[in-house]
């Protein structure tokens, strides 16, 4: 008995000792309920045929492990709550069945000025990024190395092996047929993560603020056997000339692999933006133009060119501003009225060389009540002959 007690004490002591190396353990998450209704086509607002809704639960655990290793693991679960039986006919992430997957599971460690982050993670780079507009963001199985040996400069090297955007369809034709909207096979009980196109992707970037009042970034991508892409961007704060005013310039291009896309042309885009603050209202105006031709869009490769990082990107109707032969402009006004709400007004026009132009006006109001983030959004858009309206409600309970 004594021996048993001693063993138990020893085990407990070992456990405590082992656990002592784990610090800053954080358990957090959120529960979301998103609803959208549209009168597009023959539907009326609040009619189930033009509505979509879904609930999500995110649960994350992060901790600092031994030897200065940071870690995080997140699980996301989606459920329709049975809304499809009466209120809605579509969901934010495809599939009506219950679905869950590990959305993040990574370790990170710094060695001097170099940090290595390996595992499933969200990415934020111009041509491969996690889109956060949906109820669940797309993530990547990737390895990222950051280095800051050069003052005011971060060098990035990344390898992306898999993702759960439309890239999971590594057959580009099938991905193209899917229309660029994120696909997710978790609803069918399958692994939602698939090879990033044909054989993964490599990305190299440099972000520097060494030039006074300027943040400059340059990126190069090799999406194996699919495309090469590059992105240059300079954001300049003109505070020495006009206080509170900034300008930005983007220049990006994509070259498709001729074996995979034998009929596709090279494509490039230029965008400019001026932003400032007037009486507390953050204003910006942006213009972009994309080369004509039969080319791949200047947009997120992770979701097969759905959302774009061009300054002119619309609030809701993605897949337009980056399309070849398109001139777009965007005007944004945002006002944060403290203790009341945050308001936003967004206007986007995409003038396509071929096909219907897209015009969108979005008005948003968002407010946080304790642990609950709420947002109400009204969108009026035209991407064919008629204007249509969309009303969206976003509820997120943070815990």
């Amino acid at each position, binding site marked *: 008995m004594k021996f048993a007690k001693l063993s138990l004490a020893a085990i407990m002591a070992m456990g405590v000792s082992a*656990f002592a190396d784990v*610090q*800053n*353990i*954080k*358990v*957090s998450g959120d529960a979301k309920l998103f609803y959208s209704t549209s009168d597009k086509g023959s539907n009326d607002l609040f009619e189930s045929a033009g509505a979509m809704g879904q609930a999500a639960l995110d649960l994350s655990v*992060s901790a*600092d492990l031994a030897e200065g290793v*940071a870690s995080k693991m997140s699980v996301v679960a989606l459920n329709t709550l049975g809304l499809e039986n009466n209120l809605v006919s579509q969901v934010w992430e495809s599939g009506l069945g219950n679905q869950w997957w590990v959305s993040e599971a990574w370790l*990170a460690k710094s060695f001097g000025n170099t*940090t290595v*982050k390996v595992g499933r993670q*969200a*990415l*934020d*780079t111009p041509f491969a990024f996690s889109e956060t507009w949906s109820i669940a963001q797309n993530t990547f199985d990737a390895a*990222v190395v*950051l280095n*800051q040996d050069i003052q*005011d400069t*971060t060098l*990035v090297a990344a390898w992306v092996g898999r993702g759960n955007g439309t890239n999971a369809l590594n057959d580009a034709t099938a991905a193209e047929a899917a229309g660029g909207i994120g696909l997710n096979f978790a609803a069918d009980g399958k692994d939602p993560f698939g090879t990033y196109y044909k054989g993964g992707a490599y990305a190299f*970037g440099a*972000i520097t*603020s060494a030039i006074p*009042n300027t*943040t400059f*970034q340059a990126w190069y991508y090799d999406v194996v056997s699919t495309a090469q892409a590059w992105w240059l961007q300079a*954001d300049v*704060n003109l505070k020495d000339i006009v206080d*509170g005013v*900034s300008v930005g310039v983007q220049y990006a291009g994509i070259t498709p692999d001729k074996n995979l896309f034998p009929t596709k042309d090279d494509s490039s885009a230029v965008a400019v933006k001026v932003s400032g603050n007037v009486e507390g209202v*953050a204003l910006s105006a942006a213009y972009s133009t994309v080369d004509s031709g039969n080319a791949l869009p200047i947009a997120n490769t992770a979701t097969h060119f759905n959302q774009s990082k061009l300054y002119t990107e619309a609030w809701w109707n993605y897949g337009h501003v980056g399309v070849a032969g398109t001139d777009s402009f965007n005007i944004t006004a*945002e006002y*944060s009225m*403290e203790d009341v709400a*945050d308001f936003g007004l967004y206007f986007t026009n995409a003038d396509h060389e071929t096909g219907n132009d897209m015009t969108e006006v979005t008005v948003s109001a*968002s407010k*946080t009540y304790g*642990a609950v983030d709420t947002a109400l959004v009204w969108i009026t858009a035209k991407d064919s002959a008629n204007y249509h309206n969309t009303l969206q409600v976003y509820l997120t309970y*943070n*815990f």
Partner: protein
Amino acid sequence: MLKKIALFVLGSTLLCASQFVLLENGQTIWLKDDGTYEKVTLIKRDGQMVALKKDGTWEVVPEKIVIAETVVNPKSQAHYKAKTSLLAKTLVGVWKSRDGNLIYEFQEDGTLRIKEKNRWKKTTYQIDDIDEVKRNIVVNIGESERLGFLSLGGEHWILHIDEDGQLHNLTLKLKIFKDIALMKQ
């Protein structure tokens, strides 16, 4: 606990004449000559720290107040570090990125205001750990509950204040792969 306090009283009496001790939980106590102790409330008056005693009297606290060195638990240790660390004191104030798009406002009462993407957000913060050598501060943002070693809600930020006095959010850098330097205003 009483034994620790008694030993501490003895040690303090031998080593230092001061009658006031700052405990790790941030509480200041007055060590009386009769071997008992009393919690006091500190106020600032004419630039001096004054201790308000329960009997209605007050006394000026010496500048070099003795700080208790025993460790009660990790949380009180962090609290103690946060109260006494110069690095932690530096954190309080307004920090702004060069382009003004990112602003952190750490207030003394534990309130944190964040401006990001043209929106202000108000939350809470507390310092969970400090590494003076690396000049890193682990800040617990928006914690809703704590169950022992588990912190529930919000997120941990690792903030680095470099020798030039610039603040870097190392946690944010891991997310967006950009190192945004914030200057104290």
